[in-house]
């Protein structure tokens, strides 16, 4: 009885979490008319639709008209015009799913945004690791004056919300003239208190003998970090990677603040805004297609890393 109740609660929770994704995916497949009227089920009818903007863009010019007259001299101009019109509408008609996904790439430089997202998240993660691993190693395995105080500061930093320090960070970057650059997107996140904390907890569980053996074998302290601690900490590192990459790939707040004009520096979430201001207000389909494209890399990465990720969490929780 209790087990059944538990599952019902879990199912409800799962539904609440998954519903927005289902809506996103469904909208990305449907035509504007279906989205507006709420018809077509999950996949939409996929009836060919006409892209009015495409039609408007390809008004026939005089040369095309002359060519059409020459090809069929027995028709009146009206008939020719209407036939050209039909041809155009036919050329501009496509299935909604194709419309949405091509629109996602043509309306905004989505590939560029994805590339920016990749550069920014990977740079952040790599630098975070370069900083966090030696720091965590020192906090977990070395004895030095003030170690406990340093660790207490790390814990304290975990409590500071990003938004609280956003303004001073922005001002600092602005004074350095770094706004509207990759540096502005990356630098504030390079020292991750969470990363230091997570890796420190994991390193606490690595036996001291292993570190001592490495010292006897002739390794210096940095060599121990990269050659011994890093390989043993892969599960924890993957767990951290998931947290870090998800957070910064999806971040809207910070890029919105420091990237003020240059569209070439937009990250994927900023790219989504391109569809919001549409005057006709009917670009939900492409917008949702963009959103789908943005979350796919994350979902793929998570599924690939899932087993290791859960292992990592379990390990760091055990010790």
């Amino acid at each position, binding site marked *: 009885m209790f087990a059944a109740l538990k599952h019902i609660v879990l199912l409800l929770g799962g539904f609440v979490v998954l519903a927005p994704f289902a809506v996103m995916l469904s909208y990305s497949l449907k035509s504007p008319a279906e989205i507006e009227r709420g018809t077509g089920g999950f996949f939409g009818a996929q009836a060919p639709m006409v892209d009015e903007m495409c039609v408007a863009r390809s008004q026939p010019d005089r040369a095309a008209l002359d060519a059409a007259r020459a090809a069929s001299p027995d028709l009146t101009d009206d008939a020719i015009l209407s036939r050209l019109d039909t041809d155009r509408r036919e050329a501009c008609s496509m299935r909604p799913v194709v419309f949405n996904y091509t629109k996602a790439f043509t309306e905004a430089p989505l590939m560029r945004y994805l590339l920016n997202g990749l550069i920014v998240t990977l740079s952040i993660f790599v630098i975070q690791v370069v900083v966090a691993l030696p720091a965590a190693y020192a906090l977990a395995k070395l004895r030095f004056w003030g170690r406990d105080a340093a660790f207490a500061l790390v814990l304290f930093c975990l409590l500071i919300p990003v938004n609280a320090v956003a303004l001073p960070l922005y001002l600092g970057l602005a004074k350095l003239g770094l706004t509207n650059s990759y540096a502005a997107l990356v630098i504030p996140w390079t020292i991750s208190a969470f990363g230091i904390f997570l890796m420190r907890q994991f390193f606490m569980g690595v*036996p001291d*003998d*292993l570190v*001592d*053996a*490495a*010292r*006897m*074998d*002739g*390794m*210096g302290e940095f*060599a121990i970090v990269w050659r*011994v601690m890093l*390989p*043993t900490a*892969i599960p924890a590192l993957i767990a951290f990677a998931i947290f870090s990459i998800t957070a910064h790939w999806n971040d809207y707040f910070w890029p919105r603040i420091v990237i003020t004009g240059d569209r070439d520096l937009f990250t994927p979430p900023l790219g989504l805004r391109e569809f919001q201001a549409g005057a006709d207000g009917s670009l939900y389909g492409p917008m949702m297609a963009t959103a789908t494209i943005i979350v796919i890399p994350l979902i793929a990465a998570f599924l690939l890393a899932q087993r290791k990720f859960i292992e990592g969490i379990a390990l760091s929780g055990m010790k």
Partner: protein
Amino acid sequence: MATVTLRGIRKAYKDTEILRGINLDIAEGEFVSLVGPSGCGKSTLLRIIAGLEGPTAGEVLLDGVSVSGTRAADRNLSMVFQSYALYPHLTVAENIAVPLRMRRLNRWQRLPLVGGFMGGAAARSIAADVQSAAEMLEIGPLLDRRPGEMSGGQRQRVALARALVRQPAAFLLDEPLSNLDAKLRAHTRTEITELHRKLGATFIYVTHDQVEAMTMSDRIAVMMGGQILQCDTPARIYADPCDLRVAEFVGSPRINVIPAEADSAGRIAIPGCTLPLRHGCRAALRLALRPEALFLTAHDPKLRGEVVHVENMGHEFVIQIAVAGLPSRLVLRTAMPAAIGQAVGIGFDPAQALIFDAEGRRCRDVAVTQGVAA
């Protein structure tokens, strides 16, 4: 190969003193065991020799040269850990190669991927040395495995191979057998002793198991409370201990301790009889007798008691006897079985008795006086 000399080593953490002035000279090629109960400071001492910890006072000399300021990595010592401490992400061959790679290759040659193209002759010599170390310990077929895929005994061998591959000045072994099961432990004991003979290197071996110390060492240093109580050959440690704690620690079953007293004439008496032994002056004493020094006898026994427990060891019986007036049971070894509940008489040769004073120090001014009636 090197001599190891310890001069007045002290170590204190905050207020607790772990080591209280250790002096020890270890000759070249000697096998010395540091043995003692847990918490006696033996592992700390080994770590100080290794350079993994610094002493509060005193110094370590290798070949007569102080290594106080030298990093562990530069002391050219090898250490085998209780937990083996193999690198879990490397294969056996890579594990054994690590100490050589760190010494013979430069920074660039050690880089992953690209380093492989730059090693050249050095890399080939490393591979050859790894191979010969693996052959010496008969782990050739395991070279491609990872530590996680091996048994404890196999990991132990890999740890030994990693220690000996770079031919260090001395080997430090920190309870290397305590994670093995009893059968494998006896086997590996022999192997390590043979390895020592083959290499002729200096071995410093830490253990809490007196059997390991007795069977393997040239000399045993018995440690207790941060001090070396006695450092001597196994035979002398066993037969001629200078401290009651040493006598009690070494030997299984434990040595029998009987309270005794020297009267004003210096004659030594135990509850029930006076012994033909003479001590310098009047004092409370303790008499210690190895289980094999006691025998069952009906003729003129020195002590009488009742058999309370019998252990059949196959080749002998270990008999526990409760004697009225003694605080603990006496244990003796005999070839003859005895029945539980049986009243027996116990005899011993007074010359075999070890006499200790009230503080546990050995009294050597004891003379056997013939003809004094019991």
